[in-house]
C-alpha cells in the first residue's frame, strides 16, 4: 500500500525538512518520494500542518495506582461521559479504551507510563495492552526497595547493582528506570515524615543522594538510552526549588531527567511564603547540559493526583477534594497515594500555573524541555490543546492571566516573557526530542525509514482546536483518525528494552524471594504469553 499526503506544510526539524512537500508511506513506513509510482491512496492535506506522531514521555495511563483512582472516583467518570468536550476533568475514571482513543485524536502515537512498580508489572502491561491504537512504554521504579537499599548499605559492587537493574528492566518489560523520592517510601514506613536529598533511610543508613547517584550511574553504565528519570524529594512544598536546584547541580556530567519540574518551582517569598523560583530553576537547567526536564503543567479544574511518592501523598490528604483518598505502603517500590484535587484559580493555583509556563518559556532549548502535565497530576492530558495555545500565543496567556490571582502572578516573571513557541519548536518538544530521549530512532521525525506515525492538523487561528482534533492521524501507516474522530482501531505495542538477565542474579532473586516472601520467583514474573495479544511487546535496540 502506497499512501501520499500531498500539499501539506511539513514540520520535520530532525531532517531539516520543514517545507511544503509531500509525505509518502509504504507498508507502514515513511519512504522518499518514489519515482514514477502512483499512490494507492492520496490525501490532499493542503492548508494543513504535517508532523510526526507526538510522543508523551510522562503520563500515568495504566497500572495499579491509576486503577485505584478509577475505583476511588467512579463519580468523576460518570460526570464526564455525557459531555466529554466540556469536562476535561474526569480522566480519573477513563478506561484504557478511552485513553487510546483520546490520545490518538490529538495526534499522539506513543505514550510512556512513567511509574511501573516492578511487582505489579503484569497488571500494568495488561492495562497497556488494552489501550488501543498507540504504542506504549514503561519506566520501572527503583530506589525504595529493600534489595537496592541493602546493596548500597552493604557496599556491594556496582556490577551487582547493574545486574539487578538489568534484571528488573528485563523482567518487567521496561524501557527505562525511574526513581521516586529516593528512599522516602522506605523511610515513611519507619515514620519519617519529611525527606530531603541528604537525609538517610533509617534502616539502611543510605542517603537519597546516594540512591539517585548510584542508579544514575548504573543506568548510564548499562547503556539504557533514557537517563535515570528522577522524581526528586520535597515535591510540591514551598522551598522545593532548593531541592530541585541541588538535584540539578548533582549530575556531575552524567545525564539525568528531572520529572515535572513545575512541582519544584516554589520558593518561600511573599506573604503566603509560596512564590515562584521558576526563573532560577530555568537558569540552572539552561546552564547544565546533563539535565532534561518535563514540566507537569497545572491547568485549572478537577483532577486526581496519582503518585508513588507515598510520603508526599500522605501529607496531602488534608487537601483532598472530594475527601477520600487511598494511601498504599507497597512492597519495595510499589505503593503510593491517590488524592483527588481541584486546582482553583486562587493564589496557589495561579502561581503553580504561572510557574509551569515560566519554565516552558525560560528554558531556551526545546530539546531539553518536555511537554507534560504529569497526567493526571497537573491536569488531564486532554488539557494539552489549551496548553499548546498558551505556549504559542502570548495574547492567550495575557487573556487567561486576567482571570487569575494578580498577587500570585505579580510574584512571577510571566507577564514579561513574550516568547511564543513556533511550530518547529513544538515539533521538537513533542516529537523529535522525546524520541531522542527515549532512544526511539524509528519515530519522532518524517524521514525515510521511520515508522509512519503521522499527525495532520488543519491550520486555523484557534490553536487549541487545531491540536484537539487532528485532521488525519496515521499509526504505522494505518489511517486511524479522520477529522478528530477515531475511524479505525488497532493494537499498538509496548516498547521495551530486553537486556539478557545475569544468571547469578536470577539465582539470587530466586533465593531472595523464597526467603523473604516465602514465594518462588515465578509469583513475581510472567511470560509474554500472559498478555494474550499477538506480539504485545516490541524490542528497542539500545
Amino acid at each position, binding site marked *: 500500500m502506497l499512501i501520499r499526503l500531498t500539499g501539506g506544510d511539513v514540520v520535520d526539524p530532525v531532517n531539516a525538512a520543514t517545507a511544503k512537500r509531500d509525505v509518502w508511506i509504504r507498508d507502514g513506513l515513511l519512504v522518499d518520494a518514489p519515482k514514477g509510482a502512483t499512490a494507492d491512496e492520496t490525501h490532499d492535506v493542503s492548508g494543513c500542518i504535517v508532523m510526526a506522531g507526538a510522543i508523551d514521555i510522562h503520563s500515568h495511563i495504566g497500572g495499579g495506582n491509576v486503577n485505584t483512582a478509577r475505583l476511588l*472516583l467512579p463519580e468523576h*467518570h460518570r460526570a464526564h461521559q455525557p459531555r466529554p468536550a466540556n469536562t476535561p476533568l474526569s480522566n480519573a475514571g477513563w478506561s484504557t479504551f478511552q485513553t487510546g482513543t483520546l490520545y490518538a485524536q490529538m495526534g499522539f502515537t506513543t505514550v510512556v507510563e512513567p511509574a511501573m512498580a516492578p511487582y505489579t508489572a503484569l497488571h500494568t502491561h*495488561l492495562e497497556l495492552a*488494552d489501550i488501543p491504537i498507540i504504542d506504549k512504554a514503561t519506566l520501572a521504579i527503583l530506589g525504595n526497595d529493600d534489595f537496592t537499599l541493602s546493596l548500597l548499605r552493604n557496599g556491594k559492587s556496582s556490577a551487582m547493582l547493574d545486574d539487578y537493574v538489568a534484571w528488573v528492566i528485563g523482567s518487567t518489560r521496561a524501557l527505562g528506570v525511574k526513581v521516586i523520592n529516593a528512599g522516602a517510601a522506605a523511610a515513611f514506613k519507619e515514620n519519617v515524615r519529611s525527606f530531603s536529598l541528604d537525609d538517610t533511610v533509617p534502616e539502611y543508613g543510605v542517603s537519597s543522594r546516594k540512591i539517585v547517584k548510584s542508579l544514575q550511574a548504573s543506568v548510564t553504565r548499562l547503556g539504557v538510552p533514557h537517563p535515570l528519570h528522577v522524581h526528586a524529594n520535597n515535591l510540591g512544598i514551598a522551598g522545593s526549588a532548593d531541592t530541585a536546584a541541588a538535584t540539578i547541580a548533582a549530575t556531575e556530567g552524567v545525564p539525568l531527567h528531572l520529572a515535572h519540574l513545575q512541582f519544584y518551582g516554589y520558593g518561600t517569598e511573599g506573604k503566603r511564603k509560596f512564590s515562584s523560583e521558576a526563573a532560577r530553576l530555568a537558569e540552572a537547567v539552561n546552564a547544565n547540559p546533563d539535565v532534561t526536564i518535563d514540566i507537569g503543567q497545572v491547568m485549572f479544574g478537577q483532577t486526581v493526583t496519582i503518585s508513588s511518592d507515598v510520603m508526599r501523598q*500522605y501529607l496531602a490528604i488534608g487537601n483532598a477534594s472530594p475527601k477520600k483518598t487511598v494511601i498504599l505502603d507497597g512492597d519495595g517500590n*510499589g505503593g503510593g497515594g491517590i488524592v483527588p484535587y481541584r486546582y482553583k484559580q486562587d493564589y496557589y493555583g495561579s502561581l503553580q500555573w504561572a510557574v509551569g509556563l515560566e519554565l516552558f518559556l525560560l528554558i531556551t532549548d526545546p530539546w531539553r524541555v518536555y511537554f507534560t502535565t504529569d497526567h493526571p497530576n497537573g491536569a488531564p492530558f486532554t488539557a494539552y490543546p489549551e496548553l499548546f495555545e498558551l505556549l504559542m500565543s502570548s495574547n492567550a496567556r495575557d487573556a487567561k492571566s486576567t482571570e487569575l490571582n494578580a498577587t500570585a502572578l505579580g510574584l512571577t516573571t510571566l507577564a514579561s516573557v513574550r516568547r511564543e513557541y513556533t511550530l518547529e519548536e513544538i515539533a521538537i518538544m513533542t516529537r523529535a526530542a522525546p524520541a531522542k530521549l527515549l532512544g526511539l530512532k524509528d519515530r519522532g521525525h518524517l524521514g525515510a525509514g521511520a515508522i509512519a506515525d503521522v499527525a495532520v492538523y488543519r491550520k486555523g487561528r484557534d490553536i487549541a482546536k487545531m491540536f484537539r482534533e487532528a485532521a488525519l492521524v496515521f499509526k504505522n501507516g494505518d489511517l486511524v483518525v479522520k477529522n478528530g474522530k477515531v475511524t479505525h482501531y488497532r493494537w499498538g505495542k509496548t516498547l521495551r528494552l530486553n537486556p539478557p538477565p545475569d544468571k547469578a542474579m536470577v539465582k539470587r532473586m530466586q533465593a531472595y524471594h523464597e526467603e523473604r516472601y516465602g*514465594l518462588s520467583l515465578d509469583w513475581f514474573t*510472567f511470560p509474554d504469553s500472559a498478555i494474550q495479544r499477538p506480539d504485545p511487546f516490541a524490542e528497542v535496540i539500545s
Partner: protein
Amino acid sequence: MSVAWVGSQPVPLTDAVRNAAKLLASSRCPVFTLDADVHGTRSAIALAERLGGAYDHAAGDVLAKEVALFTDHGGMFTMPGEARRRSSLIVIVGEIPVAHHELLQAWAGSQPDLGDKHKRTWFHIDGTETIEADKLARKLKAIPLGADGLSLPAVLGVLRAGLQGQRIAASLTNIDRFRKALTTAQFPVFVFSGTSGETAGLVMLQGLVADLNKTGRASSVFLPADDDAWGTALTSLWMTGFPPRTGFSNSLPSYDPGRWDIQRMIRDKEADLHVWMSTRGGETPPRGGKIPLISLSKTNSPTSGAKITISVGKAGIDHDGVSYSSRTGTFRAVQAAQPSELPSVSSIVGQLAQALPGRKALPC
C-alpha cells in the same frame, strides 16, 4: 465426553454456540454473571458491551461491600508481602475467609526481617464469632479484643475512642495488652476482608488506622472475600472505568450498584437472558427468576434449567491464564496444572461474538 448441551441433550460445540448466539441476539436485556480469570472477564465484558448488557460477579454482594469501602471512603493499605516482612503486630478483624487462613499461618511461621523485627504478636477483634474465625484465632494464638454483645463496628468504635483517650461506654477485653503492644510495634497491620463486616465497620476500621498514623505508622491488609471476584473488579475498572454492577446503556458504561444488581434484575424481570459463567466447578446458578439461562461452567453435565450449557476450563488448572492472588496483592500468571481439552471462557465468548449477526470479533 460431551462439553456442550442444548437443554439436556449433548450437541457438538458449534451447535451450542450457534444456539447460544441466537438467544443473545434476540435478547433485549442480557445480564452476565462473571467468574473467570482476567482474560475470561475481559472477553465477557466486551461481549456485554456489544450486546448492551449488564454484568456482576458471582460473589457480587460481598464484592459490592468491598468496592463501597473504596468508592465511598478509601483508606490506608499495605501489601501482604510487606505485612509479612515488616509487621510485628497483626490484628485480625472479624472473619477472614478460609481461603486466606493458610497465608496468615505462613506469616505466623515467619519472623519480620524489616522494621522493628520483633517476634510477631496477634490480636483478633471479635465481632459475631463463627467456628472458623475461632479456629483461626486459636491457630494464630491471637489475643481476643472485644466485648460480649458488641458487634464488630461497635467494637471498632469503642477501640478507636479508647485509643484516643475518650471515655468509653464498654470495656474491651485485653485492651491494655493491645495498648502496650502498640507502643512497641513500629508498623501494626489490621487484616480485614469483605466478610469482616458491613461497609460501615470497614470505614470505622480505616478511621482507626488513620488515627494511629497521626503520630506513628499503621496500615491495613485487604484480603478480598474472593480473589477471583476482586480480579474481576480490577479488570472491569480498566476496561470500563467502573467496578462490576456496570451496564451499558446507550453504548456507554454506567455504574450503579442498585440498578445493575443483576440478581435483582432477574428477580424483577428487567433482564430477559442470563449468561452464567463459573469456572471454579461444583457451583450452581442462583435460584430465583425464570429467564432463559446460558451456562458457561466447569461441568461434565448440563446445568439444571439451562437452555444451553458449555463446559469451560479454569485458568491455572485446565489452561494458562492470569488471576488475582492475595498472596502478592496483584495479578499472577498461572500455568495449567492439569491441561485439558476444556475451552477457556475467553475462547467460547470469542466464538459467541463471531456467531452473532455481523460476525465481528471482540477487542479482547
